[in-house]
């Protein structure tokens, strides 16, 4: 306790310093007066009495100093002094201060903004959902096969029933319906969700209620729906009596029982849902039939919430054990099937999985920006400490302690960092808002929600890195400065012409470090930018000019035979339209969220490893599909109109499938068994991208639509017309076939690709912005160090000119010196970059870590900046009157 009191009293003393000092003086004065009076009373003369009193008392000033020390920590006192002095120094060189603070502010601010943005998307992607730290995607996998499946509903219930480490499981299956708005059909995305969905997520509807447990079961028994806030606003105009009203969804009248809160968009990264229905209504929304009792139908995507304190490994172990039991109990349906708990940011069935590589690149780039900023400030501090050598020497000579000097330099560095960190918060806040402005919704129905606040952890980390870097580099020159041979330094700094060799060595080192560091960073940023551009421009393997259009037959209640009729006639009519070169149908278009069919296959002559069930995805397409969408047939033939119910079943496989199952022989004419039918392979198609540009090539095959009719298909057309121009013609043809139908809005496949790679394009823009910033900072840093270095030799240049050198000679000297340093720095940087860029190898897309373009541009940029940085101060130096240069 006494220790604490003493501490507190001293702390208080720090703030009441002036008052306490005054009291102390007064008290001692009283003492002296009393003593003097006593001596006078004893018969001394007043002045004698005073002197005697002073003698007895001792040295007043020393005693005051000692007494002060008793009250205040000396270092704290000095700290305040240092801060004052530091602030004065920063104000005296505003150029330096502004530059340093600007660099740090940009570095800290952008990092904080991007990190928190990324953190928002990856770690807490769903606004309003509680316990996202314990939330994991729950997916099915097949032994020996890359990628994921869904889960079947019976399996899902068994997992829910038999596990003990989980708080809850939820189903969340994306689907859609067409809502007719006037004479136009509008597509709305919805979710088929388990009845516990809203309760498990901790999301309370703002009107009405969520689903009741009994509403999850019973085939089509509970036509109820919870609508989103946006639907409530746009479609129902904030109708306060919305609860209990009905709405046709896919031809079934649903009762609206609740309205979700404004910020809740569902649990699917990249899509904002308009409504939710319980699992019991699955058949109404799934074009491929009733699945709630089918253990082989793997359609469920969902999430699992671990109980607090349970690790993912423990949860995974329990689920794997249950999966093993299910495999034993239901070998027919479950052989080879496993399950996996996946962190949210790797969720494979929504946008999150696609985004993580690009987000990682963005993160790497902004971190490089921060590194450059730190390097800049450190170099600036170092350079300035050399400028202040004379001051330091003087202070040492006047008796300042070395530790005191170091402390002061560190305080100045700290002051810079703190100001910059405060600025960084402002920049981060502004950046976030700017991000929202710069990137509005990519497509109707998609809302990217940015959590409103800056993540403080991210900010703390960025600021911490900056402060640390500044401190380290503030200490180095400080120590250097404090080890000075006093007499020598005073002499040479005062009047020497050619500076000491150790100083010029340090200066050269500064330039070398800055150049090589900048080179590494620029080359790295260049590589990342290049790979993002490559991703962006990558050919998906099909022609993206093709126009697609779908008509909502399933929603309109069509069954298979009627749909078959409709599509056959529609194809004939569309092919006859002027300007249409070719037209076809496909069940699933590439780069859509609709899933391809997938099936267990058997291959003649291919023996799968035990416990493995080869499963391959496929698509149902009409004749002329490959010609229309522009996927080349490598060998064999395209589907024709006669590949229908009356002819033998056939298939076209992709190159990867051919290589995997028929490695030694030609796959043409071979057979593959799909859903109990043997199909003959009549063609091999070139690989294409099916979902994203980043996917790894997987086996894939096509079957003729005419042998596998479904109700919902998309029309694809190759035409010179624009999608807008096609709308009227299509509407006319569809109307002629069924007066109650309207086609959806036609679009180019490019739009679909863009929508799916929205996050990628966002990242490209961001990386370009931050790359430019990195370049800017590196250029500033190099310029500052270089021009400082040149300006230090002004005296020497003056001397040379006095001895007869002309301006051109001096310029040549300075520039060649600077270039020599730059080239040396680039050489060091290139060696370092060659070693370091391999670290980001897995972030690169079709770009070698030693890509000459990235390295070449870094080289050119740095040389150009170095030239400018040498030339300007050198020219200034040549204009100085030699006499003045010498005298200064």
């Amino acid at each position: 306790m006494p220790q604490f009191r003493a501490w507190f009293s001293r702390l208080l003393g720090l703030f009441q310093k002036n008052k306490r000092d005054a009291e102390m003086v007064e008290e001692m004065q009283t003492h002296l007066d009393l003593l003097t009076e006593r001596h006078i009373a004893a018969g001394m003369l007043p002045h004698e009495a005073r002197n005697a009193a002073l003698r007895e008392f001792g040295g007043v000033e020393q005693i005051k100093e000692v007494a002060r020390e008793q009250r205040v920590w000396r270092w704290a006192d000095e700290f305040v002094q240092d801060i004052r002095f530091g602030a004065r120094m920063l104000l005296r060189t505003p150029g330096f201060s502004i530059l340093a603070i600007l660099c740090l502010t940009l570095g800290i601010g952008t990092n904080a903004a991007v990190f928190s943005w990324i953190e928002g998307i990856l770690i807490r992607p769903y606004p309003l959902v509680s316990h996202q730290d314990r939330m994991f995607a729950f997916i099915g996998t097949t032994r020996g096969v890359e990628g994921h499946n869904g889960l079947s509903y019976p399996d899902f219930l068994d997992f829910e029933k038999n596990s003990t480490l989980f708080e809850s499981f939820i189903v969340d299956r994306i689907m859609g319906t067409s809502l007719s708005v006037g004479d136009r059909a509008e597509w709305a995305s919805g979710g088929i969700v388990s009845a516990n969905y809203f309760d498990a997520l901790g999301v309370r509807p703002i009107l009405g209620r969520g689903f009741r447990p009994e509403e999850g079961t019973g085939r089509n028994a509970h036509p109820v729906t919870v609508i989103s806030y946006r639907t409530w606003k746009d479609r129902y105009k904030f109708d306060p009596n919305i609860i209990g009203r009905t709405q046709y969804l896919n031809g079934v009248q649903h009762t609206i029982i609740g309205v979700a809160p404004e910020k809740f968009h569902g649990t699917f990264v990249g899509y904002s849902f308009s409504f939710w229905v319980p699992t019991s209504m699955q058949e109404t929304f799934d074009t491929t039939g009733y699945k709630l009792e089918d253990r082989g139908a793997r359609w469920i995507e969902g999430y699992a919430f671990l109980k607090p304190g349970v690790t993912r490994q423990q949860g995974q172990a329990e689920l794997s054990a249950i999966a093993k039991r299910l495999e034993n109990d239901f070998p027919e349906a479950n052989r080879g099937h496993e399950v996996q708990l996946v962190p949210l940011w790797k969720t494979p069935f929504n946008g999150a999985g696609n985004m993580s590589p690009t987000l990682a690149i963005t993160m790497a780039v902004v971190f490089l920006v921060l590194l450059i900023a730190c390097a800049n400030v450190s170099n600036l501090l170092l350079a300035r400490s050399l400028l202040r050598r004379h001051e330091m020497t003087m202070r040492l000579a006047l008796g300042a302690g070395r530790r005191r000097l170091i402390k002061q330099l560190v305080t100045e560095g700290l002051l810079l960092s703190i100001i910059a960190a405060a600025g960084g918060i402002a920049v981060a806040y502004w950046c976030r808002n700017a991000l929202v402005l710069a990137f509005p919704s990519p497509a109707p129905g998609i809302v990217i929600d940015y959590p409103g606040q800056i993540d403080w952890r991210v900010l703390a980390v960025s600021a911490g890195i900056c402060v640390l870097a500044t401190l380290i580099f503030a200490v180095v020159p400080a120590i250097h400065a404090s080890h000075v041979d006093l007499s020598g330094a005073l002499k040479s700094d005062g009047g020497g012409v050619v500076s000491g060799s150790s100083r010029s060595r340090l200066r050269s080192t500064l330039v070398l470090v800055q150049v090589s560091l900048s080179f590494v960073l620029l080359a790295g940023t260049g590589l990342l930018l290049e790979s993002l551009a490559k991703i962006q421009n990558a050919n998906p393997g099909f022609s993206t000019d093709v126009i697609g259009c779908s008509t909502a037959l399933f929603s309109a209640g069509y069954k298979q035979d009627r749909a078959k009729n409709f599509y056959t006639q529609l194809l004939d009519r569309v092919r006859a339209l002027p300007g249409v070169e070719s037209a076809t149908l496909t069940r699933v278009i590439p780069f859509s969220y609709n899933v391809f069919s997938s099936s267990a296959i058997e291959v003649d002559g291919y023996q799968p490893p035990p416990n493995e069930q080869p499963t391959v995805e496929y698509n149902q397409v009409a004749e002329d599909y490959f010609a229309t969408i522009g996927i080349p047939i490598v060998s064999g033939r395209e589907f024709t109109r006669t590949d229908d119910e009356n002819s033998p079943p056939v298939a076209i496989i992709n190159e990867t499938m051919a290589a995997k199952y028929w490695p030694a022989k030609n796959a043409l004419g071979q057979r593959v068994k799909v859903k109990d039918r043997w199909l003959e392979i009549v063609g091999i198609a070139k690989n294409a991208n099916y979902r994203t540009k980043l996917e790894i090539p997987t086996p894939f095959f096509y079957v003729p639509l005419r042998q596998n009719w479904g109700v919902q298909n998309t029309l694809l057309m190759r035409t010179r017309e624009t999608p807008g121009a096609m709308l009227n013609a299509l509407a006319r043809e569809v109307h002629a076939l069924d007066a109650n139908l309207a086609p959806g809005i036609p679009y180019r496949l490019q739009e679909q690709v863009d929508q799916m790679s929205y996050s990628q394009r966002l990242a490209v823009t961001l990386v370009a912005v931050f790359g430019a910033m990195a370049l800017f900072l590196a250029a500033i840093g190099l310029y500052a160090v270089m021009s400082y270095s040149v300006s230090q030799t002004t005296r020497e240049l003056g001397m040379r000119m006095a001895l007869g050198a002309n301006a051109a000679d001096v310029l040549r000297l300075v520039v060649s010196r600077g270039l020599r340093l730059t080239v040396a720095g680039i050489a060091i940087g290139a060696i370092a970059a060659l070693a370091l860029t391999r670290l980001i190898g897995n972030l690169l897309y079709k770009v070698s870590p030693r890509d000459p373009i990235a390295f070449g541009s870094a080289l050119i940029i740095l040389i150009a900046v170095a030239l400018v940085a040498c030339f300007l101060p050198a020219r200034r130096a040549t204009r100085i009157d030699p006499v003045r240069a010498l005298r200064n």
Partner: protein
Amino acid sequence: MAKEKPDLVYGTLDMLILKALQHDPRHGLAIADRIQQMSKDILHVEQGSLYPALYRLEAQGWIKAEWGLSDNNRKARYYKLTAAGRKQLSAEEEHWLRITKGIDLVLAGG
């Protein structure tokens, strides 16, 4: 830097100040007088060194200072023992007695 230079055994000044304040509050000069008087003129406190010690004791919370009037109507800072100071004083007295007894024994044994 000038260090306080006690006329006394090093480290005993604090204890003597506390003792001088045992019964009545006193100002600086009075404390010096009191110590001198109690020691029958054997101990002389160097007046100046009194103040650093007083501030130290105050910071420890053993004494408290208040402005008051001296006998001849002068404004002076009066120091008073706190409860914690009292405890400290008895602890130091006990400690001192033990030490001196030990020293006595050593010297007597010679």
